[in-house]
């Protein structure tokens, strides 16, 4: 959706690189196994500096969403929805992302289950992708 590329830093470069390959990963503490994101050098659960990237399920639930109706950024035309998603791995793991459906989709609801899609970013710079969430249809 957006041509705005992330300003990657030394902590985050590997996460963005993984996302560009279609892998949603979070950091995981090697000692206490707590998940964390964005990338940080220290686990605030146990204080350990040891960690690894671990692929996540790519699923979660909607914590909240907004619909931007007044365009803030010249390159991002309104209206559009942005979701805050609670990752399935851990209750305090929250991350934003775009929404795959229309901004006024009546299916948007707090608690709705979602799954991650990856949208490659074109243009100059290192390979990168953005997250886009779609609602998982119930099989009922």
């Amino acid at each position, binding site marked *: 959706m957006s041509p705005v590329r992330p300003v990657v830093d030394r902590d985050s470069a590997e996460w963005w690189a993984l996302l560009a390959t279609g892998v949603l990963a979070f950091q995981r503490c090697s000692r206490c196994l707590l998940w964390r994101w964005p990338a940080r050098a220290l686990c605030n659960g146990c204080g350990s500096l040891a960690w690894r990237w671990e692929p996540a399920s790519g699923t979660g639930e909607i914590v*909240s969403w*907004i619909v931007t*109706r*007044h365009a803030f950024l010249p390159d991002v035309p309104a209206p559009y929805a*942005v979701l805050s998603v609670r990752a399935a791995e851990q209750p*305090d793991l929250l991350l*934003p992302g*775009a929404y795959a459906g229309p901004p006024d989709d009546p299916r948007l609801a*707090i608690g709705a289950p979602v799954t991650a899609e990856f949208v490659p970013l074109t243009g100059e710079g290192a390979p990168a992708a953005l997250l886009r969430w779609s609602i998982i249809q119930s099989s009922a």
Partner: protein
Amino acid sequence: MAQSGGGAVLRDRTAVAGVGWTEYTKNSGVSTLALALRAVRAALDDAGLEHSDVDGVACHRVGDSASAVLVAHVLGIRDLRFHLDMFGGGGTSHQVVAQAALAVASGIADTVVCWRAVNARSEFRMGGTGRAAPDAPEFQYQLPYGYATPPQQFAMLDRAWRHARGATAEDLGRVAIAQRAHAALNDRAMMRKPLTMDEYLSSRLIADPLRLYDCCLETDAAVALVVTGAERARDLRQTPVLVSGAATGGGHTLFSNGRADPTVSAAADLAPRLYAAAGIGPETVDVAELYDAFTFLVPLQLEDYGLVPRGETGGFYADGHASLGGRLPVNTHGGHLSEGYVHGLNHVAEAVTQLRGTAGERQVPGAEVALTTGQPGYVGGTSSALVLRRDG
């Protein structure tokens, strides 16, 4: 009742002895340095002090205003005993005053001026530009989604809060309407025309669910306070307003390993420490000036500061309890929504005015204790608040 230690060491030992404001405008036409100096001059005049009495300076800013040391140099303070130039937004506003009070109570400084000076409308808008907050590595995870500005970030929290409490747009409309009615009694306020529910509900959605009238007024203005020892303040021009309690607290990160529930703010952790520091409970508060960059933050803080039970703020407003004449008047100046946005410090100034008993038509009769708060810690912030008490 009161707990020993902690913030209680500060109780009633320092006072706000002076308050100063510049005009509130959409374009000040001057620098933030000039605004800061005008507000400081006004606050010193109010206190009956000279600039040569000042030996400490304290402000907060986000790369949008003149530095504290520059203000100190212009004031001519050679032996600068206390200097605080805090990086931060509205969550740090009350911490600036608390740190000044600590410096005075500990004897590091005698008289500290605190201020916030912004050309937040004409030069450095907070709300509308998509500009990156300085020093915020988290920005990279939001900006690519067109998700960057305070109205968007707070709209995300707003929807979660409304959902959890069953709050309606009308519930939040009553907050905006009540504050506008207060602003109508405030000569300083930017917006004084009464607001109707129809106008509120038909105002455009900025970042759904946030409407235009849920958002504060970006303003060019400065507010300054003079903090000195309680005994010294009693010899000065105004009724001293004592710093009875101060507390700072944490906040929500935007992402992980923090607080999983966005509908309860860090103020809920801070509040018990704050009340213990002041030796009071929430039932003692006569008037509350609560940080209101967006409407929902007001009922949310009424909950988190223990002033109204969770889920009951809608009825509290519908019954008029938050209005002048009600059980607990809230944001008697009109708040950031209707007076203007001076990033938290104008709430402290209003609390001081109320406790002096000089608020004129909007005076809360007999107000003795005020709660005044900064942003309750969202969007990667921290939280801070003060309990102020009329001397005597």
